């Protein structure tokens, strides 16, 4: 008799205990103890060195505990944020990449309006076109920009030498005032060495060139114009031309082969927004000193850049906001640039000797600060919409398909436009 009742009870207790143990672990981990105003949770993505800022801040503000989670790639972080917002368990602070931002700006009710917290007072510190991207239709500011992705080209001086090309960054920059000249240089390199010149056409040509015009996939009032925008078509045709010229290594960016190819010198050139330099360093640590950085064809452009936002359900928005103001002030962004290479969004420091004087030994002492800020000063900002990243992805896919020898170049544009229409419905 005793046994009959006892055993299920024991079992049930055991299960309950296990579950509460798990629950306890979950509770003390990610969610913060209520009432502790000195701690908050921060989601970032990998490869962007937010750890450096977090450690700095904690050093200067002892007693503040920041739980930094590098969720995954920027896209995965945005996906995780969406599911978190839908599920109701959100971090206090989150880093959102520029292309993913518009979707969240459209649903600004999910985030704290940063104006009452003090964003109105500091918004003048940042590039106005960068600020405008994180401002919702009703004027709510939901994000403070942490960096912009000024553009340049990273190249291997040793491989250029072998091919009989100049190696000095000034001269290299002069090799390609335009993208057509870039492709011509590539042909020379490939003819001389038999090797690929650039990693791929989709990212290193299209994605750079398309980011250089005043109007990309949307017009300034937010209507999609990807199929008629001359800038987009030009960039697309250039990429197809590069793909067909046989100068690309056909390695999609961020793939295994791309990483390996970079380390092994399979290609000599990569389009490198400022945040890419860290990636090159980690992918190819043995190539220190063999790289240099030159200006990008066309001179100006922006790829990437991120924002810090505070979700509505944040347990500790005040602490998060304090972190934003202290780590994203012009001076702090300058310091962060010196440490990690992320380009400041605050133009007031662009002439600061700390920025202009910075040299990167990995890249043959290239003055990266000057090179990247110069690419921004000539920039014509364009409107980024909620479907910008989908549109960009479809165009890149079409180019990659041609590059891999699978797609018909003549039909690639129409195919891409049709795919985009299917994907976004307009």
């Amino acid at each position, binding site marked *: *008799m005793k*046994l*009959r009742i006892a*055993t*299920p009870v024991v*079992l049930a207790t055991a*299960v309950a205990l*296990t*579950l509460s*143990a*798990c*629950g306890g*672990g*979950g509770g003390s*981990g*990610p969610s913060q103890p209520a009432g502790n105003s000195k701690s908050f949770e921060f*989601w970032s*993505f*990998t*490869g962007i060195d937010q750890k450096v800022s977090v450690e700095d801040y904690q050093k200067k503000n002892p007693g503040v505990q920041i*739980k930094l*989670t*590098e*969720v*995954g*790639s*920027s896209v*995965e972080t945005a996906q*995780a944020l969406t*599911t*978190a917002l*839908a*599920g*109701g*368990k959100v971090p206090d602070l989150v880093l959102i990449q520029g292309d993913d931002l518009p979707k969240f700006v459209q649903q600004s009710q999910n985030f704290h309006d940063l104006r009452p917290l003090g964003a109105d007072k500091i918004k003048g510190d940042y590039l106005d076109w960068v600020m405008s991207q994180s401002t919702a239709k009703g004027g709510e500011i939901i994000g403070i920009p942490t960096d912009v992705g000024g553009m340049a080209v990273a190249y291997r001086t040793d491989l250029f030498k072998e091919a009989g090309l100049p190696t000095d960054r000034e001269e290299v920059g002069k090799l390609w005032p335009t993208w057509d000249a870039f492709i011509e240089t590539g042909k020379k390199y490939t003819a001389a060495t038999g090797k690929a010149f650039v990693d791929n056409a989709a990212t290193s040509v299209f994605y750079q060139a398309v980011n250089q015009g005043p109007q990309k996939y949307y017009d300034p009032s937010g209507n999609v114009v990807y199929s008629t925008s001359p800038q987009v078509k030009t960039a697309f045709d250039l990429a197809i031309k590069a793909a067909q010229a046989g100068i690309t290594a056909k390695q999609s960016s*961020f*793939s*295994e082969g791309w*990483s*390996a190819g970079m*380390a*092994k010198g399979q290609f000599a050139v990569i389009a490198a927004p400022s*945040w*890419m330099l*860290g*990636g090159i360093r*980690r*992918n190819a640590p043995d190539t220190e000193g063999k790289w240099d950085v030159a200006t990008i064809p066309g001179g100006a452009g922006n790829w990437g850049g991120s924002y810090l936002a505070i979700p509505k359900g944040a347990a500790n928005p005040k602490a998060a906001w304090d972190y934003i103001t202290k780590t994203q002030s012009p001076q702090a962004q300058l310091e962060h640039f010196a440490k990690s290479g992320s380009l400041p969004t605050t133009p007031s420091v662009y002439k600061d000797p700390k920025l202009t004087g910075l040299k990167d030994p990995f890249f043959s002492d290239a003055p990266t600060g000057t090179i990247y800020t110069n690419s921004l000063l000539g920039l014509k900002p364009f409107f980024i919409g909620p479907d910008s990243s989908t549109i960009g992805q479809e165009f890149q896919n079409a180019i990659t398909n041609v590059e891999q020898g699978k797609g018909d170049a003549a039909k690639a544009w129409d195919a891409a436009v049709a795919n985009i229409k299917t994907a976004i419905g307009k």
Partner: protein
Amino acid sequence: MNKSNRVRWWTYLLLGLAVFACLFPLYWMFVVATTDTATATKLPPEIVPGGNFFHLAGLVFTTVPFVRSILNSLIVAGTIGIGHAVLCSLAGFAFAKLRFRGRNVLFLSVVLTMTVPTQLAVIPQYMIISSLGWVDTLQAIILPGLGLGSAFGIFWMRQHLGATISDELLQAARIDGATTWQIFWRIAFPLVRPAAFVIGLLGFVTAWNDFLWPFIVLKSPEMYTAQIAIKALQNSFHIDLGLAMSGSFLATLPLLVLFVFVGRRMVAGIMDGAFKG
């Protein structure tokens, strides 16, 4: 067939090839995990393990909270494994040996649930988990895992209990005044414990290796299971294959060790299934 004949040499050759195909990918994982990324991209390939194992393993432990993720996997897979063994035995016992209204219909519905592709309902599953406030907790994996994977186990245990335990034995116990629970716990369960053990093992292995659902509901590194930790070893802007393979190997190692001890029983259990004869 040809049971009385000698085993031909080509039988061993073909079986040897099959074993090679089964084991080589794991061996290759180990080779890359003991050298570095350069090995994974070197041609001709190096096929002897190097001496870099501890360096890379150390990196795995510092890049992600790996110990914690192994612990999480143990909690999740252990609970699901034990849960399956117990729940499937209980339900299998009821279906095999107890008479109650609606038994056949209910059993049929258990079998039918096996054909329901629940995996594609991830979107509402996520909504339910989040409305329970369970996102980023281990019970978000354990409870669905207990419910969704066990239909096969119930079916299996029913076959076993039906074949192993005679009605006379139960009748005798009843006459002796044993309750249903006592009959299950004292008579039936001990007799089918090996089968229940295998069901538990299969549940454990499946839970240990599950990817999609933990990937969706687990967000913070402290909650990662081993599989999600492997994924997290790959940075967005660069891939260290040596590190990735080292993590994969370390996440597989606990199961390999377990398998050395229980593999024989697992093989016997799978073969002792419901399809004999």
